[in-house]
């Protein structure tokens, strides 16, 4: 199999944290703008325009923040698992930097999905918490994130910490299909997925289009946050290089 030349070039450039730092800068305002527009539209449509659910009433409007948070929690983990593989196989420094930057963001989305789920559960299931398969596997995801964050802080040598985090991130990938199929494998209170690749959503368009908008908005804001955070990690870890020292001096003279 032959990999197209532009992809090979991109791959080699990703080996350079400096290239990443310089290339990612112009994307930031666009990602923020897209995220605000999409999430703003999705939230307004979902809160004010979409019809109330015939069973759950207006509490179902929590779906427009709960589902995107849960999707991003898993996407972020898959990104980290991928970074773990790239770090272990190709020793790419940038992968370890993304792994460090993405962990707290993924943890925050997982916690958000759990808390909004609990708040939604109270009026619909009659309880804040239940040891349901989907809820429990998401709680395990939160512990995986916290474990990766803690591991990095506990190990003094950065290379050893990076490798340990990569291994934990890869092992934890097992949990992702468990989360996905938990609603099919076990008897559960949690409703099945709203979006499936092979079927039309069970909701009317006036309910699922705002959900799609807010998922897209969440993705844009997630990438915005991860890029920003990775850029800071790049500066911190490359602080002994000439280009970072020049950048710092330049910023200092501007301030």
């Amino acid at each position, binding site marked *: 199999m032959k990999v197209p030349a532009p992809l090979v070039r991109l791959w080699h450039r990703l080996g350079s944290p400096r290239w990443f730092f310089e290339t990612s800068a112009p994307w930031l305002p666009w990602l923020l703008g897209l995220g605000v527009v999409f999430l703003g539209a999705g939230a307004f449509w979902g809160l004010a325009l979409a019809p109330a659910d015939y069973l759950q009433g207006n509490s179902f409007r929590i779906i427009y923040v709960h589902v995107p948070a849960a999707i991003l929690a898993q996407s972020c983990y898959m990104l980290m698992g991928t970074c773990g593989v790239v770090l272990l196989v190709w020793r790419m420094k940038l992968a370890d930097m993304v792994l460090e930057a993405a962990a707290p963001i993924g943890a925050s989305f997982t916690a958000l999905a759990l808390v*909004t789920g609990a708040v939604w559960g109270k009026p619909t299931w009659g309880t804040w918490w239940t040891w349901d398969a989907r809820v429990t596997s998401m709680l395990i995801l939160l512990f995986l994130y916290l474990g990766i964050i803690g591991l990095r802080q506990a190990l003094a040598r950065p290379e050893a910490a990076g490798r340990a985090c990569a291994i934990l991130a890869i092992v934890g990938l097992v949990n992702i299909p468990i989360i996905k199929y938990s609603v099919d494998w076990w008897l559960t209170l949690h409703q099945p997925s709203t979006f499936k690749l092979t079927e039309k959503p069970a909701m009317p368009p006036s309910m699922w289009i705002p959900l799609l908008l807010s998922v897209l908005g969440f993705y844009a804001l997630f990438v915005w946050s991860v890029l920003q955070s990775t850029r800071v990690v790049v500066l911190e870890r490359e602080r002994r290089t000439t280009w970072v020292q020049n950048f710092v001096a330049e910023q200092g003279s501007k301030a």
Partner: protein
Amino acid sequence: MNFESFSAFLAMGGHGPYVWSCYGLTLAVLLFNGLAPGRRKRRFLREQGARQRRQEQPQEQA
């Protein structure tokens, strides 16, 4: 518009506290994730700037 008045919109048919607390929390999480790197970057620039200035003038400290 699905609601008859702004107060009905806020009340969400009795589910207002549930719905609005979720949206408020979401906003807080998104803002925190977006603003935290900026704070960390400013701190890095301050500390690294001071380190570099110290290295440039070692004779003054001696």
